[in-house]
């Protein structure tokens, strides 16, 4: 378009959207400009042609029923959502109330644990059978004889000969609450009329039923049954437990006993 009238303005002119003064200006311009006149004519033709295009078309039969069904579903969904929201709010409220109750009724927190003190108290509370000051095969046997109690299914403890036929040890590594240490379990073998009796100082255990002999190594304790509280003395005869020495020994006492036995029975 060569004239300075914007083409879009002609659209507005055709739609009578312009200010009356502008409308008059355009009309005056059209009387002089054939190009704009043709453009306006084209726009008016198009507008007239579009008049025969139907503005509304009746929707298919049943459209309202289908819409009502969809709306009913939306309402049901909203109802469910409201119910869920209510339940969720109630659950949150209950949780908060429960937490508040817990906080308000909770006992005062215990003082921090001092592990070392607890262990020391525990060990001192044990009535350890004291190892004789002088350890030799005779005095040890005498001491053991006094410590022996009948084992499961036993009525009387055996009478130990004065001297063991064998003094040995089983080496082991112990790792527990007291720390890791290397130790050897003393082992005494006595020949009694009913057979050989093996005496082991086994790392402490609480459940004798689980103490099973391990034939391959000759070790009669189960590593799983170690405890950190001490060492128990058990006696074995021909692969089965026959006596239990009451009480437990502290690991340090066990080391001391082993050392003394080695010194006495090289």
């Amino acid at each position: 378009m060569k004239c300075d009238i914007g083409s879009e303005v002609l659209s507005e002119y055709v739609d009578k959207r312009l200010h009356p003064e502008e409308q008059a200006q355009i009309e005056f311009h059209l009387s002089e400009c054939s190009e704009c006149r043709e453009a306006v004519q084209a726009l008016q033709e198009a507008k007239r042609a579009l008049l025969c295009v139907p503005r509304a078309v009746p929707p298919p039969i049943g459209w309202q029923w289908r819409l009502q069904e969809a709306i009913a579903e939306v309402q049901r969904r909203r109802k469910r959502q409201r119910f869920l929201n209510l339940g969720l709010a109630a659950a949150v409220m209950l949780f908060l109330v429960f937490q508040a109750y817990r906080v308000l009724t909770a006992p005062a927190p215990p003082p921090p644990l001092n592990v070392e003190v607890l262990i020391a108290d525990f060990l001192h509370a044990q009535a350890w059978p004291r190892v004789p000051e002088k350890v030799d095969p005779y005095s040890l046997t005498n001491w053991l004889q006094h410590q022996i109690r009948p084992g499961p299914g036993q009525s009387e403890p055996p009478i130990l000969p004065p001297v063991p036929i064998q003094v040995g040890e089983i080496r082991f590594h112990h790792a527990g609450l007291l720390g890791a240490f290397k130790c050897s379990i003393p082992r005494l073998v006595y020949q009694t009329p009913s057979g050989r009796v093996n005496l082991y100082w086994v790392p402490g255990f609480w459940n004798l039923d689980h103490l099973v002999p391990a034939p391959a190594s000759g070790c009669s304790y189960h590593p799983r049954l170690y405890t950190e509280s001490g060492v128990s003395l058990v006696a074995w005869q021909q692969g089965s437990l026959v006596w239990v020495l009451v009480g437990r020994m502290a690991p340090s006492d066990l080391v001391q006993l082993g050392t003394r036995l080695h010194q006495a029975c090289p």
Partner: protein
Amino acid sequence: MFRRSKEVRSDGEFEQLAASVAPELYGMALRLTHHPEDAHDLLQTTLLRAYEKFHQFQLGSDFRAWTFKILLSIFYNQYKKNRLAPKTISLEYLLSQEGGGWEPVSLDDSPEERFMQEQMEEPIEKALVALPAEYRLAVLLVDVQGFSYEEAAEILKVPVGTVRSRLFRGRTQLRTLLHEYARTRGYLQEGESR
């Protein structure tokens, strides 16, 4: 008619408003999808969305313009991704087809199908289909549906100046297409403007 007052909104009120705008929405949906079933789906989706958002509807605004805006939004977001997007077909292509016109494929003879067939036989409808989509929408909203430039701009989410420009180009092209159609059918002689 569609101006809302400040009374409490109810489902009955919505249904009344929906019924008043449904024919126009359906007509627009038909021109967008060119298929009665798709148009019906578009109408249902539009009115259902309007129902769900009815509480957001601003008091004093035009329900009709609001639903048209929803319709176009759904169409472009959802339907355009599928096969329902309107295709711009050149008039030359349409005229080159056997019989000189476009016969919409129809598998049944529902009233809506027949309406579409009859409507699409009209030169103006063919010319509308041949228009570029953005021009066609501007022309449909302003010249067919009777929206103002401002309302059309709001519905199309474009500035008013863009509507004005698209309208001018759309109308001009429409007139050219109609003339070409008339000329090919022998209603106009070569070189004759009308």
